[in-house]
């Protein structure tokens, strides 16, 4: 309702005291609340819905852990490692029995994965570049799709008009036509010839325009091309990123989001120029990590931010409850504290069009907020209260 230092607390309102209040953290690259099989599904396509993979029946304890860590929202995806991840959604981490109350945004983005290892094997280099072109192609056909359908709409309009006119004319001439016909029949009778109906021809203007093919996947890609949906591309290697940036340059309204971006530093200037956000995974990975992560470096977030790239931090499904802790690692490796905080709140909201709803403490925003006993993102700071949608879900006296 109101935020400020000199507010009058309305009657009957519960006053929660705390040193620091900040917006609830959001994991822009998580899997909390999703059915495991749906997350790893490799068979998803552009039209697969994340909301169909949401499992409201997972033990509330898992979501409470995320809440207790201050994470109040997660962007989820069916087929996180799939070539086309389909339509993502943003979920609240507040435990709920029914799907509807979990969903904050049911179509937050479209998604694609490029060059990702499956079962520890990376796709070969040519296949990888091919995959990039394929994605660009799909965005293209998405754009054409909307063009074709717009064209169809116009043609239908014209056709309806033409038909109306034609029929009006026919109606008008009917009486005469009828008279002529009777006459001809009579004549035919006299010189007993067989009566022939006059041939009716229609010019092709009156031919009904053909309904273009309906395609749910193209329909989604159309929304991507028009910039209605951001496109989250999970991609790590510099070569593929260059190819992608080159290929997508022509789509002026496309809103690209990079997830992973292990080697994104190489294309940092372009990313900054086109203001393409990168969701960095600030998790410490050991020696036996997948091929696309081989260049993994905890300093990535800091370096990109320094290069002026918009940085988000995501768990990549590794456990949203740990994201705030992992964020501190990014800070320890060069990411500015304020930017780290933004990367978990305002930047996420901005990237996925939630700014009107979430991510900051302004009147009118959904009351997802944290009350802390110290600066956020310090291990010594504990989250005392967590409010989700205005409900107090975590308080010092609630255990797990």
């Amino acid at each position, binding site marked *: 309702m109101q935020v400020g230092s000199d507010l009058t607390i309305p009657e009957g309102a519960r006053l929660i005291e705390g040193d620091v209040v900040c917006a609830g953290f959001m994991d822009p690259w998580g899997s909390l609340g999703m059915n495991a099989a749906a997350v790893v599904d490799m068979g998803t396509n552009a039209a697969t819905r994340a909301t169909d993979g949401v499992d409201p029946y997972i033990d509330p304890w898992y979501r409470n*852990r995320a809440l207790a860590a201050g994470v109040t929202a997660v962007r989820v995806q069916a087929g996180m490692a799939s070539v086309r991840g389909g339509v993502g959604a943003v979920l609240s981490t507040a435990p709920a029995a029914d799907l509807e109350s979990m969903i904050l945004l049911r179509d937050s983005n479209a998604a694609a994965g490029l060059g990702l290892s499956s079962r520890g094997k990376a796709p070969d280099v040519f296949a990888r570049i091919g995959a990039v072109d394929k994605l660009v192609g799909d965005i293209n056909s998405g754009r054409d799709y909307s063009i074709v359908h717009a064209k169809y709409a116009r043609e239908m309009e014209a056709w309806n008009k033409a038909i109306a006119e034609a029929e009006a004319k026919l109606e008008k001439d009917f009486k005469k036509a009828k008279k002529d016909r009777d006459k001809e029949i009579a004549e035919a009778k006299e010189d007993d010839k067989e009566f022939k109906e006059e041939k009716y021809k229609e010019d092709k203007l009156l031919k009904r325009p053909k309904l273009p093919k309906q395609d749910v996947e193209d329909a989604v890609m159309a929304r991507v091309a028009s910039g209605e949906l951001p496109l989250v591309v999970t991609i790590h290697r510099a070569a593929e990123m260059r190819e992608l940036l080159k290929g997508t340059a022509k789509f002026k309204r496309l809103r690209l989001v990079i997830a992973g971006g292990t080697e994104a530093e190489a294309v940092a200037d372009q990313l900054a120029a086109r203001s393409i956000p990168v969701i960095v995974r600030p998790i*410490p*990975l*050991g*020696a*036996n990590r997948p091929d696309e992560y081989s260049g993994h470096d*905890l300093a990535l977030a*800091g370096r990109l*931010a*320094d290069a002026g790239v918009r940085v988000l931090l995501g*768990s990549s499904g*590794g*456990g949203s*409850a*740990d994201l705030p*802790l*992992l964020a*501190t*690692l990014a*800070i*320890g*490796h*060069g*990411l*500015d*504290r304020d*930017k780290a905080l933004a990367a978990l709140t305002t930047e996420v909201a901005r990237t996925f069009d939630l700014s009107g709803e979430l991510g900051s403490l302004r009147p009118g925003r959904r009351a997802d907020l944290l009350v802390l006993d110290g600066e956020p*993102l*310090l*291990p*010594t700071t*504990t989250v005392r209260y967590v409010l989700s949608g205005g409900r107090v879900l975590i308080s010092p006296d609630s255990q797990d």
Partner: protein
Amino acid sequence: MHTNALLLASLAFVASAPTSASSSEGDALAIRAEKLHVGDGTVIENGIVVFEAGVITEVGKGAPVPKGVVLIEHAGHLSAGLIALREHAGAVGESNDSTRAVMDEADLSYAYRPNHSEVQGLLAEGITTFVLAPRPGSLVGGLCAVAKTGSEVISRRAYLSICTGANGLTSNRFPTSLQGSQAELERRFSWPRGVFATAVKGELPVMLDGGSSRTEVQHAIAFARRHGLKGILVGSTRLGEMAAKIRAAGLGVALSSYSPSTGRRVVEGAVALAEMQVPFGFALGSPNNHPANLRLTAAACIRGGLKSGEALKALTSTAARLAGVGDKVGSIQVGLAADMVLWSGEPTDPGSRVMAVYVDGDEVFRAEDDENGDDK
């Protein structure tokens, strides 16, 4: 930001006397830090540490800085170098041999390669000492060494590594069963010879990997008590659940690295162990775990209720004591090696950066200057 400014100043200072960045030829060095963590829990505001020939000679607020000694100002925290218990870095693929169940005399110090990139990776995270241990896979894996990061081995007989649990078994050599491995270990320790004798006398501590399950850990503890063994337990995320038993057995613990899946137990374990006053440090297990995992684990424990002072001790002095090198490293005390880390903030906060690392008084790591101080 003025932090960094000051730091830069200090860097310039050091640069002006490049040789002095190394104190090995005898000329001393001194560092003044805003907060100096001694390692026993005390913190000295604007504390000064003076070291010469790789050894700390003076510590304190007003520690006298001898004439001509370069004084480096560090606007941040200073602590002893971090210590990882149970590490595999620098022993590439040579840290276990599963063909034989018992390799009592195997000596890990022979497998150590100080200059391997894995080892250098540790420095960037402020780790200056670690226990090089065999990977599980045998009943008795050999003798663990304590190594200085990028430097020499300071103890060749830190622990005798023993797996009492299932991860000492393999399916195609004796033993394939727990009762088999128990029988074999009983035999070795009941009529002990060689290292076993030393261990039973309590002169050689053991690193007991009980395996993951509670029952296996119980067996490990019982085994240690039965033979009066000293040393640490490793390997299980459930060790905290048995804090009381572990304390009764007079053993220490090396907590496993944090991971989202097992993390919760590790954290609860740390808190329980601290309450029971069981001495514990942290295992790292790089290269399969990232070196940053050491501080992350500590931070997770702090988030879970562990005092950050306790955490720092576990990372430094306690770990040193557990590894039997408390008289050499692990705290900022006169006479100990000048292994130090200069932090931008609290050492146990993963959010603070490693600005510089000293091993035996030599500066072995220095963070490249970061801009985000400036663009504010």
